[in-house]
Every structure is written in structure tokens, then in C-alpha cells.
């Protein structure tokens, strides 16, 4: 047998600042200092008037409550029905009971609402450590969030770089494949041009790579100027370009644009004070040319039309034929450079 001990009310206040000493009817005979701080002077009131016991449910009498002595109770202060406090009740010799409480997971709210300090908790209570941990966790989380944002910025920058042709700033092959794949998969209507420079190799060979690079940048500028913001203009090879033109399937409009490009690229450019003459040939197709537009198929079609334009004497644009895969015969349409 362990000896019973007598503990003063003041000692209880220190050990359990959130305790209630109840009499046999559930009237409050004494309340811990933190409870008084929160609920005011509650001596003489009934615990059942102050708290709604939610677990176990339906307890309104001391005798019933004491049958759950030692178990975990869940209670809400009537003033804050949303808060779920924890409690434990044990009977004491005077026929009453000690009901010790804690804020449970509402501790953060409780501290904020009632401006509690470390002095409102027993030194053995880890509630303050929990607040410390929440705060430290938030700090770490904020850092992770910032890190994620920086990584996301770096990722999109890297992605942008991986889609850009460094020499001209146009999109590259990969970007074109993605855009074309998306357009086909989304069953969007679009026009597609395959443009190849004429006589570019000569410029490169006679005037050097610096001249070639200069010309390519000039061409890129022209292509950008003649196309819309939503078009994809890609450099897909040394002097090869592909242009994807969303919603532009009208053959006359496509031919008109191609004619303008051929005309502008056929004008002499300046390199180091000397005129420098190239030209362009263009093969054109559109999503309308196929029942089920397919990127490889469309590119092949545009390529065949380009081939036909080259064969017909360069410096012109050709529309692909629906008889896909066959080189366009009989010159279905032709655009010649304006003077």
C-alpha cells in the first residue's frame, strides 16, 4: 500500500495550473491560476455549465463522469465550442474529484487568444516547446518555399534556354517539336512552313562564318517581324527554319505571307559595307491537308513542297499537295518574289 499524501491547493496550482477541484456535485471548489486567467472567477459554478464533455458523450453527472476516472476526456469550454481540450479526472477523498485539463491541439490558438506566457504553464509541460517547434517548423518551411521558388525560376530559365536557338534567339528544333506535337494532339488548325535559305552556303564559304552568323540573325529578325506573336519560328538546321502558324490554314493567306518572306529575304543585305545576296525557298502545308494531322507527316509534306520550290528554280514558295508523300507535280500554286 502506498501512503496517501496531502497536497495543498497552492501546490496543486503550481503542478497543474489548469486543474479544477470539484465537489461531489461537480461544483468548482478551486481552479488553477491559468484557468482563472482564461475563464475568470469560476468558483461555485458547475463544471457541466462551463464545459461540454464530448468524449465520452452525454455525461452530465459527477457519478457518470467518475466512472471514466483515469481515461482521456475531451471537453469544450461553452464559450469556445470549437476548442477541444483534453482532461483527466480522478476522485479524491473528500468525495469530490480533481479534473486536470490541457489545451490539447488548441494550444496555439489558446496562447494567442488569452495572451498566455510560459508562466501560465507548469515547467514540466512541453506546451511551450510545442510552440517553439511550430515556430521553428514554420521558419524551415518558409525557407523551403523560398528555395522552391528559386529552383522554379532556375528551372524555367533552363527550360527557356533549352528551347532557344542561341545564335538567333529563335526557338530551336526541340521547341518546334513540342509546339507542333501540342498543336496536333489538341486538334488545332495551323499552317506550317519549311523555309530554306538559297545561296547561304556561298556566303558562308566566301565571306566567312561571321558573315553567315550575321545573315542568320538578319533572317531571324525578318521572320519575327513578318509573323505574329503567337507563331512559333524555329531554326531547325544550319539555314533551315520552320514556322508554325496557329489558326492560319487559308492557302491564299499562307501564300501571301510566304511571298512576303521570299521577297524580303531576296533583298541584298549588308555585311561590312558590302552587299550580300541570299534568297529563300518555302514549302507550305497546313493541318487541313490531313485528316489526322501528324507532326512527322506534316513536316515531311512541307519538306516535299520545299523540295519542289527549290527544283522549280528557288526564290519561291509552294503549297504541298493533299496526295501526301508524292512530290507536288504540276505546280499547284506558286509565289514569286515581288520586285
Amino acid at each position, binding site marked *: 500500500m502506498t501512503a496517501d499524501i496531502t497536497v495543498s491547493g497552492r501546490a496543486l496550482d503550481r503542478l497543474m495550473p489548469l486543474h479544477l477541484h470539484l465537489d461531489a456535485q461537480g461544483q468548482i471548489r478551486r481552479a488553477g491560476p491559468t484557468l482563472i486567467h482564461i475563464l475568470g472567477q469560476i468558483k461555485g459554478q458547475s463544471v457541466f455549465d462551463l464545459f461540454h464533455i464530448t468524449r465520452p458523450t452525454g455525461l452530465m453527472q459527477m457519478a457518470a463522469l467518475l466512472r471514466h476516472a483515469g481515461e482521456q476526456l475531451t471537453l469544450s469550454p461553452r464559450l469556445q465550442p470549437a476548442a477541444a481540450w483534453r482532461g483527466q479526472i480522478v476522485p479524491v477523498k473528500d468525495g469530490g474529484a480533481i479534473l486536470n485539463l490541457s489545451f490539447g491541439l488548441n494550444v*496555439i490558438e489558446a*496562447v*494567442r487568444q488569452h495572451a498566455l506566457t*510560459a508562466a501560465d504553464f507548469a515547467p514540466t509541460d512541453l506546451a511551450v*516547446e510545442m510552440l517553439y517547434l*511550430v*515556430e521553428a517548423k*514554420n521558419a524551415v518551411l518558409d525557407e523551403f518555399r523560398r*528555395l522552391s521558388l528559386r529552383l522554379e525560376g532556375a528551372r524555367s530559365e533552363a527550360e527557356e534556354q533549352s528551347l532557344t536557338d542561341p545564335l538567333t534567339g529563335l526557338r530551336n528544333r526541340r521547341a518546334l517539336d513540342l509546339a507542333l506535337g501540342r498543336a496536333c494532339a489538341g486538334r488545332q488548325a495551323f499552317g506550317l512552313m519549311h523555309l530554306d535559305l538559297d545561296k547561304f552556303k556561298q556566303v558562308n564559304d566566301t565571306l566567312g562564318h561571321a558573315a553567315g552568323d550575321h545573315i542568320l540573325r538578319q533572317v531571324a529578325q525578318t521572320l519575327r517581324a513578318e509573323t505574329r506573336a503567337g507563331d512559333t519560328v524555329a531554326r531547325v538546321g544550319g539555314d533551315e527554319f520552320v514556322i508554325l502558324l496557329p489558326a492560319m490554314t487559308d492557302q491564299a493567306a499562307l501564300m501571301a505571307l510566304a511571298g512576303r518572306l521570299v521577297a524580303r529575304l531576296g533583298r541584298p543585305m549588308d555585311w561590312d559595307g558590302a552587299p550580300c545576296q541570299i534568297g529563300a525557298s518555302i514549302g507550305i502545308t497546313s493541318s487541313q491537308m490531313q485528316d489526322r494531322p501528324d507532326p512527322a507527316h506534316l513536316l515531311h509534306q512541307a519538306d516535299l513542297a520545299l523540295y519542289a520550290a527549290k527544283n522549280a528554280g528557288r526564290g519561291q514558295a509552294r503549297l504541298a499537295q493533299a496526295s501526301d508523300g508524292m512530290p507536288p507535280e504540276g505546280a499547284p500554286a506558286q509565289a514569286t518574289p515581288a520586285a
Partner: protein
Amino acid sequence: MNGLVNYALEGFLRSTYGAAQWQTIAQRAGLGFDRFEPLLDYPPDLTDRVIAAAAEILHRPRDTVLEDLGTWLVAPRSDGRLRRLLRFGGLRFLDFLHSLEELPGRARLALPDFQLPDMRLRDLGEGAFCLQVQDPFAGAHHLVMGILRAMADDYGALVLIDGGDGAITIQLLDATHAEARQFDLAVGAP
């Protein structure tokens, strides 16, 4: 998790001496980058190299750089987070002093692989204390001295702090010399 220390050092140097000076220091330290990530690990000698470079570029003794860093970490001009976490140590400056021994344990609660230096506090009587700091890098106790000075201000305590050879002596002259800065336990309070 020394990234946190390096990140703090960078933040202190950047905000106190400007971005250009920080770039110079980062270059002198041979970092090869100019931004520390607080949650990453770095080679252990990097911290030392940055401190040495800062001392050289700023023409300040190394110990002073570290002590200023300590003060800056707690002072209102940084984001104030460390100050709040430290104030969880106790209601009065004396409680805070005693809580320093628990600090590495507290830090590990939040970040399991964050290693703070071991600290031992000896009560010499009559308001005098000796804090033994196990330096994870040379002169780390000067950083702790800076933190102590700033925290004493925060608590409104008047103290004399002296350091040498990894040990700090603290003479508490008046625990309530000035009004303490407000500290609210509630999460996210200033």
C-alpha cells in the same frame, strides 16, 4: 546543416556592407557562387574562408566580424526569427542563460542534423557566470558573445560580457535595467 550558418553570414554581410562588398568577399573566399542555400550542406571549411575573407576585405578583426554577426542575428534589423526562438528559452535573462545548455537539443528538435556547439554554464555566484563554448569553427564563441549582448538588451538586462579562449564570462549587474522588449508566445507574433 552548416548552410544555415553560411546563409546567416551572407545575410549579415550583404545587409550590413552592401551587395558589392559581399561579391568581393565571396570572390576572395573562392566560393564560385554568391548565394548560400540555408538548407544545404557545404564543405566545412567554407564558413572559415568566408569569415577570413570578410575580415580581410572589411579591415576588421575576425572576432569583431563574428561578434557583429551574433548581434545582427538577434537585432531587430534581421527578420527577428532567431530572437523569437531564443526568447522561448525563458521569461528572464537568467532563465535564458540557463537555457543555453538546452539550445543544441532544441535546435535538433527542429532540424535533426543541425549541430550547434555544446555550451556549459557555470554559476560563479554573485551574478557571475562562465559559459564554456565548444567552438565548431575558430572563434565561434565570439558569435555567441554577440548574441548574448543583443539578448541582454532584448531582456532589458545590464550585463558585462567578456570572452577569451572559448570561455565567456558574464556579469549580471541588473536583470531589470531597462524595459524588456515585448515577447508574445503566440506563433507569428513580433
